[in-house]
């Protein structure tokens, strides 16, 4: 077979595959709205957010496959895909883009510029600081809105001082490459300064670094707090292991992580954040312009504790706290 024939066959194969796309990619009939969901990476909290979105929409009457179609794409941490996915949504003219996490929200907003596709971000800590919207309350120039997962760090720190009285040194782990985390660590330092607690920071670049960074905190700190850092949360079990082995109380800031072995936090259930986002999407689908919808913070902050995890790390949660907790995990 000579080179030309060989090339032609390859091209024909490509053409066949490309032509098969509409069957999978979804040529929609008129009237069905398409919602593109872009997620940065797979981990329980972000997955829970997505599930919340879908359920929230369903409860408001928008069911996937029925009167709406959901196109879900996950870039699995590959930055070049983040832009690709956003670009695809825009050129395929989806009706709304939902972006879970900061980089893909930025990419979506950038790609949608000049079009009238609204972008709804979620699980973004500081949308104003990231220039997604000009202010929390009103953003007349941006067809962008969403739900922020900004937590009140000082509440968490207060909780820590209740459960670990006399805490003097607090450790934390985060990926300096995640802007949400950098923001939260600043808040951490503010809250701890006010209480006279020293903060020991360790940074990681990948999930593989979490174990050794955790081990380096042993003997240096009285307790550990971690924020909603995607890199650290992905390797949360490793962190739990180190804390249990060395009796260091570990406080995450989201509910899924408390299930996985953290002691307690005033947190969002990311599913709730997703649900809240779903409700927001329903508003937009019903006709409200995203321009008019103010950015929301996660509404449902609840105290969630895990006394069994606490025991494993050598502390006992005072009964009073368990009583006021909204959720008590028994694992």
């Amino acid at each position, binding site marked *: 077979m000579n080179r030309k024939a060989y090339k032609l066959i390859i091209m024909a194969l490509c053409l066949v595959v490309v032509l098969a796309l509409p069957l999978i990619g979804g040529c929609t009939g008129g009237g069905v709205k398409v919602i593109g969901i872009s997620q940065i990476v797979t981990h329980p909290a972000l997955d829970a957010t997505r599930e919340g979105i879908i359920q929230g929409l369903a409860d408001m009457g928008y069911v996937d496959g029925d009167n709406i179609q959901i196109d879900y794409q996950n870039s699995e941490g590959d930055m*070049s895909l983040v832009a690709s996915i956003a670009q*695809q949504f825009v050129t395929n003219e989806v009706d709304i883009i939902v972006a879970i996490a900061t980089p893909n929200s930025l990419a979506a907003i950038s790609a949608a510029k*000049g079009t009238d596709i609204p972008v709804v971000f979620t699980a973004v800590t500081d949308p104003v600081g990231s220039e997604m919207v000009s202010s929390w309350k009103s953003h007349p120039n941006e067809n962008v809105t969403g739900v922020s997962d900004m937590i009140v760090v000082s509440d968490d720190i207060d909780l820590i001082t209740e459960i670990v009285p006399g805490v003097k040194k607090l450790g934390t782990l985060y990926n300096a*490459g995640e802007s949400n985390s950098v923001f939260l660590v600043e808040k951490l330092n503010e809250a701890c300064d006010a209480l006279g607690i020293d903060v020991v920071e360790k940074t990681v670049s990948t999930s593989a670094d979490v174990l050794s960074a955790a081990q380096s905190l042993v003997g240096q700190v009285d307790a550990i707090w971690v924020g909603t850092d995607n890199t650290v949360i992905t390797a949360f079990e490793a962190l739990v292991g180190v804390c249990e082995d060395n009796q260091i109380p570990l406080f995450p800031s989201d509910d899924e992580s408390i299930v996985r072995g953290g002691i307690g936090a005033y947190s969002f259930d990311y599913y709730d954040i997703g649900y809240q986002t779903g409700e927001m999407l329903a508003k937009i689908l019903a006709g409200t312009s995203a321009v008019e919808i103010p950015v929301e913070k996660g509404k449902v902050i609840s105290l969630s504790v895990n006394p069994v995890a606490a025991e494993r790390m050598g502390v006992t949660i005072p009964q009073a706290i368990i009583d006021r907790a909204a959720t008590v995990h028994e694992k």
Partner: protein
Amino acid sequence: MDIIGNLLNISLYEGLAYGFVAIGVYITFRVLSFPDLSVDGSFPLGGAVAAVLIINGVNPWLATAAALLSGSIAGLCTALLNTKLRINALLSGILMMVALYSVNLLIMGRANIPLLRQVTVFEQAAGFFKTGPSLSLAIIFIAVLALIILLALNWFLRTEIGLALRATGDNEQMVRGLGGNTDMTTIVGVAISNGLVSLSGALIAQNQGFADVGMGIGMIVMGLASVIIGEGLFRPKGVTAVLLAVFGGTFAYRLFIGIALRLGLPPTNLKLITALLVIAALAIPYMRKKLKGEWVPPAVRM
């Protein structure tokens, strides 16, 4: 079919924009035989430099040019590690990549710089044509840039210095014997290569709306895959043909990825697909020879 057209358009844009990375990888890996892995660091370097300058009010064209320059300096450092400190090429690239991660964070001051509110080269180009920024415009803009770079490289690789550069990767001993300073040619080559990679980073950051310290991860794999696919698919002969084939390979690579995404393949499998693609591109010529009964040379290490 709209979806196909859109996919082709997106892949065209990406093929051109990321094509500079592939050209850079081609210059180091193929022309100079210098396995430079610092690409994962110099790509975000370009994005970082451009973003920081733009948010501080610098004209985006200047910022982009500065990004190119910063990449060249990074390449210069990698080459110096190798030529002057006698650190082997592979290690030099890896060391630079590691160092650049911190350098990029230092330059940016934060992990992620949004460029949504800034005027980018794309917007300026759009303004020139009195329209708003769009994908089609981005394609035309980058195509023009790519053309300029292609012509410049095409000319450069035919000059005396360019020839010496090509020969350095082919037969370094001979070049020295002919009076060529192989340290200098290596430095020039690696500097040009990384300059182009940083240029790509600057353009991509401006178009996607942000610069992120992690945006370089996987760039070297993409660059290599693009070069190999381009060579396998187009079998180019001669300098000009090869440069075009590299852009073509990048386009093909991004197209395959786009198709995979559309087919619903989880991106975790994308790395596997990339590997399979590259293996196919490398193995098919070998397989054909064997089927024809031709003799094939034994396995090579590098």
